[in-house]
């Protein structure tokens, strides 16, 4: 067993390798519809399980609790509540972010689910704060979760 205390991995003899693979991820049956609604109609949709009375946001094809196929679509609106949040100050490589970014878990009114997203137009947040989604303009929307630019405190 080697006993040296190496703190910089590059100090040990090594070979630099690379995992070459890029991916294109399928949106899926339910994802296609969710993002079409978001892009074209500016609506955030969920699906409801009739057995469990749960509204899933983002929507799912099936209920993971009872395995029912979900076919009832509901517009859950753009308003929600901050369930918990963090203020990120460093990047994954340990470098400082130029400006802190607030990320929050937002629970939608009348829905079981929630969404992780950025919080904008404010420097202070708290658990329980009411927020609403700010969508990009229809021309800018690309059928991506980033069609929601961020959430901001409701006026």
């Amino acid at each position, binding site marked *: *067993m*080697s*006993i*040296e*205390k*190496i*703190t*910089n*991995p*590059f*100090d*040990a003899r090594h070979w630099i*390798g690379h*995992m070459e693979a890029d*991916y294109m*991820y399928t*949106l*899926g049956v339910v*994802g296609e519809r969710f993002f079409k609604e978001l892009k074209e109609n500016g609506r955030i949709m969920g699906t409801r399980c009739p057995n469990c009375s749960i509204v*899933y946001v*983002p929507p*799912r094809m099936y209920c*993971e609790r009872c395995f029912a196929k979900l076919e009832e679509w509901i517009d859950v609106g753009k308003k929600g509540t901050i*369930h*918990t*949040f*963090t*203020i*990120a*100050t*460093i*990047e*994954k*490589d*340990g470098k400082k972010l130029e400006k802190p970014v607030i*990320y*929050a*878990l937002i629970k939608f009114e009348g829905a*079981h*689910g*929630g*969404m*992780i*997203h*950025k919080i904008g137009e404010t420097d202070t947040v708290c*658990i329980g704060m009411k927020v609403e989604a700010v969508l990009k303009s229809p021309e800018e929307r690309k059928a*991506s*979760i*980033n069609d929601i630019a961020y959430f901001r405190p409701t006026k």
Partner: protein
Amino acid sequence: MYGKKRVAIVGAGLTLFRRRLKETGKELAYEAAKMALDAAGLELRDIQSVVMGTAPDAFDGVHMKGEYLADGAGAYHKPYTRVFVGGGTGVFTPLAGWWHIASGQFDTCLVVCEEKMSSCYPHPQYAFTTIFDPILERPIGMNLIWIFALEMQRYMHKHNIKKEHIALVSVKNKGNALDHPCAQLAARITVDDVLNSEIMAWPVQRLDVSPTSDGGAALVLVSEDVAKEITDNPVWIDGVGWCIDSTHWTNRDLYYPDYVEYAARMAYKMAGIKNPPKEIDVAEPYDPFDYKELHHMEGLLLCKKGEAPKLTAEGVTQRDGDLPINPSGGLLGVGNPIAAAGLMKVCEIFWQLRGEAGKRQIPGDPRTGIAQAWGDLMQYGSVIVLRR
């Protein structure tokens, strides 16, 4: 009686945990496995089956990691499988070893865990960014530290817990690790050191977090018949439990780990434990972050919800307290080579129950101990109950 055969642990092995070790992943697996065999007084030819535990392929950078590590784990020409349940892997691997023997199929099983996180650069955090949903979460730029910050914040909010009380866990564990010969980040620190350390994603600060590491760990499991032949002091696997919660972590409350409770209840039922705080003498809950030790003490039913910080402040969880928690020094002190770190906890309980923990030995006469690991998207719990 659960299963066809009672299962004993008869040997344990552990490598150093370091930011980067000279050994390859295979060599780490070999070092740990060989140590465990030597401790059990057995040879590789005595081993009938092998279970390997190791976390995402992206750490070692080999997309066939189970097979890649097989020879180091002693699997040549043997029934072999690799198991992987994220951070829960280290405690899940001996559970898989347990059913190899409890099923009646084998009398011996070598259980090996390895992690070589230093291969991934500039930082293993990059591998963690691809654990999130590729459509809903990754485009936002998710990062592992941030989701733990969200969970920690929710836990603190729900029970009105102060960061000072959470920091005590880091102080205790890094201090305990001073007595661990394999430890990577043993240190005598203060609560102020934690509170003044770099803020990563509020409320998570640098000293709230365990380091990334290279390391290996191993156990030798045998049936009761074999145990009686080769040792006078076997440690029995008397309870096993595991459970997964919804992968849609944004659907959960986050303040309490239900799935850990379900896994614990399964293991306690098998072990006949009715009053966990009274009947458990020592525990090694998973502590990749300081708040997680508290979160998991509650999930393991070692105290009431929200009560773990108070017990910590009162010294109950110190080595000489009524309920020693992470006497090894945990992931915060010994290090966090994911799968190997979880198995390190099982090794610690094994040594504690045999009275072989050296300077880390807890006082009294511990007879029952538990270890627990946790992983995936804050959703997986694995629990093992050991008895002398």
